[in-house]
């Protein structure tokens, strides 16, 4: 899952899309719901699991073109929520604008994110 939102550059895209929907829909798509330190571990322990390991994986989301980035991002649940509320054209324009800080002169787009994993065992 995503690490804390401030450690993921794609959070900028998530926030831009989320701002297109009313606050009442915040819970419809919450990619960082378990991302706070200890949240996932607590949920797994509550599920009866014994934690056995954890780690982080830096991921570079690299797209050859802005169009590829927009296609990928618009396929996400956060984009669908926004499209339902303001329409695809507005979401597309918002995403293109939010991607600008991550675009290179060759037209590619790169966002650096960090993901976390937690391993556990079922003892009985």
């Amino acid at each position: 899952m995503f690490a804390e939102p401030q450690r993921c550059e794609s959070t900028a895209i998530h926030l831009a899309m989320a701002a297109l929907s009313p606050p009442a829909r915040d819970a419809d798509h919450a990619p960082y719901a378990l991302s706070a330190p200890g949240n996932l571990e607590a949920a797994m322990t509550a599920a009866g699991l014994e934690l056995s390991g954890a780690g982080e994986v830096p991921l570079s989301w690299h797209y050859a073109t802005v169009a590829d980035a927009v296609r990928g991002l618009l396929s996400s649940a956060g984009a669908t929520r926004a499209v339902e509320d303001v329409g695809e054209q507005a979401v597309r324009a918002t995403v293109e604008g939010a991607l600008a800080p991550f675009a290179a002169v060759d037209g590619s787009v790169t966002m650096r994110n960090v993901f976390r994993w937690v391993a556990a065992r079922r003892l009985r």
Partner: protein
Amino acid sequence: MENVKAGAGPIRYGNPPDAAALLQRRLWGSDPVGWALFAEPHNALLFEAVLAAAGVGPGTNLLDVGCGTGAAMRLAHDRGASVAGVDVTPGLLAIAAQRLPDAELWCGDLSELPFPDGGFDAVVGINAFQFAGDPRAALVEAARVTKPAAS
């Protein structure tokens, strides 16, 4: 990948998802091909890290909860694992069925898995549990279907 080709494995359906799961189905189902081609591949290193942490290798009986288009299952298959997957979004599963015609694929709620207790050597949920209608119930179900003393 735009259409399901002949040869794709069957997708089975469990109990009807609840309202929260149906919402996730709708939100994740707008462009499965776009997700498969332009989003999911960026997480390949995460998939490999999780499969390694879970000890997935030859003969592992693996369940991927929230399997999406099957990218992680494909990597697990390449490691020699026997793979099964559950996702609430039929469009994503249709692509998984193309990629893994022999996989056991179920369409349904992550909070109600159609498997017996302890049926899998390893269960993974990669960027998935936080999107379940009830993440904590989904974790309880994942634990239930995991073989005791397995990851």
